[in-house]
Each structure stands twice: as C-alpha cells, then as structure tokens.
C-alpha cells in the first residue's frame, strides 16, 4: 500500500472568502425579497392604516441593497479575474490545449463518479472556473435587467443622488429591452427566469463542493472557510 502524505495549499485569500460569503448571504436576501416582489406570498398582518406599515417597501429596499452589494462585489470580482496577485482566474478560461484537457478530465472525474482522476487537484481547475464564470455572467445579467426595472420608477429623471444616476442607468441598461424581446414585461420575465437558473446553479454548486470533499478526501470544503485545503502527495 502506497504511503499517502498531505500538503497544505492556499486557495482563497481572506478578501475572496469575504466576497464569497457576502454573495451567498445577499443572494438569499435577493431571492427571498425578489419572490415577494414578484408575487407577495405572505400577508401584512399588521392592523392600522397603510401609512404605518411598509412591508413591500422594506422588501424592495432589501432587494435593492442586495443588488448594490452585488454591484460592488461584481466589479471587484471582474478586477480580480484579471489583476489578482494571488491567482488570475482568466488564465483558466482561455481555451488553450492545457485548459481544454483539464476541463475534460475534471468533467470525466465527475461523470465517472471519481473512478478516474488524472489531473492535479491542488489548484483551482478550469472546470470549476468556467462554472463560477457562468454564475458571474448570470449575476451581471440580473444586474442589468434589474436596474432597467428599477429605473422605470425614476422617470422624472431625478433621484436623491442626482440626475446622472437615472441617465446612466438608461444608458447602461436600455439595451435589455430589445435584447429580451422588446418590451418592459419581457425584461421582467427574463429577470424572473434567470433567478431560477441561479437557484439551480447554487444547488449544484453546493452539491459539487460537498461531493469533492467526500470523494477526493482533500478537505475542499475548508477552502471557503479557512482559505486552504490539503492535497494528496504521492510518495
């Protein structure tokens, strides 16, 4: 029997972990409040006139705050993809022979139920990087469609932070109307359907990380908590 030895590898910096958990928490906030905005699924059980309760308004506030936080984390993530001093994710997205081979190997590892595992699992692999990138693209689509829906309420061209804000939102997001099918409702439908794609993404993401931890026996789940995992070293 082979002697197995583990080495510790750093995989996520503290800032990357903060971004991960900020995204995770505010994604739940966005989904819970977003479903309410789409169709209010609980009733306001507060007696008294409408002026004293603000249930839909609080939900919308929570949804928009979550959106603003996603705005910020998205910008940071895009920056880190290219300029991170730790690990530049874009390098794993280039369809080079190495990356394509690694992508295929990791995918084979998944569908052969870990019977075949012939790649270096110590670093971030190109399969997972592609999968994370899909999430960021979905999130960016949500940001653009969501801001388009939001700017409908700023039609006076004014906002509390100045008239540049609605102008910029129109400039940046008006393309979503023709892109989703031509009217305001298609933007809304696209925003809603994309939420389901994101939920499905999250479900698989959690499953896959747990699956890796169980079958690879390298403590992958620890990456997002402590920032490091243990890779097997063959001796």
């Amino acid at each position, binding site marked *: 029997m082979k002697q197995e030895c583990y080495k510790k590898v750093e995989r996520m910096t503290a800032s990357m972990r903060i971004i991960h958990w900020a995204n995770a928490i505010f994604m739940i906030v966005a989904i819970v409040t977003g479903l309410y905005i789409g*169709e209010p699924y609980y009733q306001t059980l507060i007696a008294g006139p*409408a002026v004293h*309760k603000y249930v839909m308004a609080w939900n919308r506030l929570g949804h928009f705050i979550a959106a603003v936080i996603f705005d910020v984390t998205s910008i940071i993530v895009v920056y880190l993809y290219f300029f991170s001093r730790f690990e530049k994710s874009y390098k794993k997205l280039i369809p080079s022979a190495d990356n394509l081979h690694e992508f295929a190997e990791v995918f084979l590892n998944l569908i052969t139920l870990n019977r075949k595992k012939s790649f270096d699992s110590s670093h971030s692999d190109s399969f997972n990087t592609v999968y994370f990138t899909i999430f960021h693209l979905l999130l960016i689509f949500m940001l653009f469609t969501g801001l388009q829906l939001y700017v409908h309420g700023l039609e006076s061209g004014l906002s509390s932070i100045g008239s540049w804000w609605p102008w910029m939102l129109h400039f940046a997001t008006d393309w979503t109307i023709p892109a989703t099918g031509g009217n305001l409702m298609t933007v809304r439908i696209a925003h809603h359907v994309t939420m389901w794609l994101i939920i499905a993404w999250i479900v698989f993401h959690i499953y896959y990380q747990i699956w890796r931890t169980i079958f690879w026996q390298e403590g992958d789940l620890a990456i997002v908590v402590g920032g490091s995992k243990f890779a097997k070293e063959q001796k």
Partner: protein
Amino acid sequence: MGKDTMESVKKLFTTQSSKVDTNRGEAYYADLYNSCRKRLDELKALPPINNKLDLQAALFDEGIDRRDFLKWASATTAMLMLPASFTPLVADAVQVMNRIPVIWIELSDCAGNSEALLRSDGPKIDEIVLDIISLEFHETLQAAAGHQAEKQLEDAIATFKGKYILFVEGAVPLGMDGQYGTIGAKAETFKDHLIRLSSDAAAVIAVGSCATFGGIPAAAPNPTGAVGVMNVVSGKPIINIPACPANPANMVGVVLHYVLTGKLPELDSLLRPKFAFGYRIHDNCERRAHFDAGEYVEEWGDSGAKNNFCLYKMGCKGPMTFNNCSLIRYNEAVNWPVGVGRGCIGCSEPDFWDKYAYERPMANANIKAPSGGVEKTADEFGLVLLTATGIGIGIHAVASAIAGKKNSEKDAE
C-alpha cells in the same frame, strides 16, 4: 456587420430615455409663448375649413359654462406640461382647431377609439372639442357611402395635400401580401391605403394600441401578420397614442399642441408623447400606499377589495405601464380601471395582450415557450429546472456512494 445591424446597434445605444423635462426655464417659455401667440393670430385670420361649429355655443348647449371651460383649459395646459400662463393660449387654440384638416381612417380595428369619443354618458369638453376639428373624412361617422365616400376622400387629399393630419385607427395586416384587409371597390389593401394617404399628410397620428403596436390583431399567433403604423409608414412624423381605447384627452392634447405650436409634442423612444406617457400609472396611483404597505386584494370581493387595497396580486400591471390614466382618468376624470376596483392590463404597452393582460401577477403567468403551443408558468419552469437538478444530483450522489465504496475496496486490496 451589415448596415441594418449597425443601425440597430446605434439605435440601441442612442435610445432616448423616458426622462421628462418639465421645466425648461423662463426664457424658453417666453419665446414659446410669443411664437404660439403669433401662430394663433395667423390661424385666426384664416377662415374655418368646413366645420362652422361655434364652440362656445356648443358648450353652452351641453350645459357647460365658461368657468368649466376655463377649468378644463387650465387642466389641459398642465397636462401638456406648459406653465399656467399658457392657459389663455390653450383656450384660444381650441377655438381655431377647425383650421386644421383631419382625415381619420380605420384599418384592422373595432372602431373602439371612435366609440370612446362618441359614447360617453354625455359629451364632455374633450369630446366636444373633438367635434370642432375639421374632420374631412371618417368612415364610421360620415353620411357618404360607396363611390361618394371614395370621392370625398380623393377630394380631401387633393384639397389639403401636405396639410392634413392623418389619424389612423387599427393595425395593418401584412400577411398574404396584405390581402387580409382591403378597402373600397378596387380592393386596395390596408397597407397600400395607409401608405398612399400618409404620403400626403403633414403628420400621422396612430390612435389606440392596434394602430401603434399591432394590439389585439397582432397577438399570438398573429395569423394576419398585423403590425402598427410605425412599422409601415416611413419618412413622416408619426405620433403614437396607445391605450385601448386611447384617451380622448390625449388625442385633444396632441392636436392642441400642434395647433398651438405648429410642432409635434416631444416623443419618447416608442414615439409616444411624453406629456401623456412619461410616467407610470403606478407612480400616481391612488392605491399606491397600499402597494408599499403590502396590503393586497387577495381575491375578488374580500375585505381588501372592500377597503380599496392594491390590486397587484390580482394582476395589476400599473408598475410596468406608462400612461396618464391615474392622473386624468377617463370620461372627463369620472373613473379609470383601478378606480373601479380591477387591475390595469397594461393596454398602452407593446404586446399587451400576450405579455400584460393575463390578469394575474407575472410570476404566475403563462409564458409562451419559443416553440409555441406549450405553456408553462415561469415558476413551474423554475421548479421543473430545480427538480431536474435535484434528480440529477440524487442519481449522481447514490452512484458515487456505490462507486466510491468499490474504489476504496480496490485500494484496500
């Protein structure tokens, strides 16, 4: 990249926003006032075309006194987003509206917009004002029929060439070479009819959702290939006044603006006048407080409905609909859809019949699959997707557990 693609990309990034500029400064309005005054004096010097109706007498006959008329004039001035000092000009402009020739044609429609003008409980000022326009041709209203009607139309086009305003009601069927709708003894298709009449018009005003965006004739599966006027007519100023029916107040507003300034009102990216379609119904809705409070009508006739709660959960599309119903209402501010306790169906938005009018929240809506035929709600789609993910994960997890066991047995050997 083809020229058309380039154009559409350009259009995408230069789309006018729906921003409404309600205050352009004193100098601008002083200039506008003088030019309007001059134009009205010129129009006053012209003789009325055919319509000799005396507006003051007509108003008096209907029991509307001068005070009511001036109240209407100041409300209309506000609707056009002009300063209060323009009220006397608006009152004057109404009197000279019979100097502007109008031709009104109907295509694939139900005459609902004409009906909206005619069938109010008693004619209100907006409707009487539309009586004073010099209507040279209107298929539904005129006495002439057959060849006489054809001749009347030809006469009107020849006499007022380049000067008349063309009102269009109804969609234009383009399918089967336009043969779904023909008019007259020569079976001229609606499309040819519209192109011929619009080529001599000063401006084309599309009234109602059918004429603007295709409306109900263009609803899926759109067998006749119906489209709106702006998809057929080119090279002419086009104004869209959507809604089903279009509000007479907005029709009067556009004509008045033209009479007053000689120009068309400022339009948004869908060619709708901003004074009417610059704001959402939702933002000026009388039930808006209940929306923010989370107080909704849960089913028809419940205590929420009796307390005028928000109709969002009953499918009100006010939050996605740009129109001024909640401000000016219908039939001289008598009432409007939300006011009578039913939701907005977004009748003034493109594709309203397919995308807005399903009378339930969007999250519950039947979304048509791109392939057609199969209908699933957005959330059902989501649950199916999630179930598929769950089943896939389940199969994979169970298989992994079994395979993983075999692996470790192999290792142990």
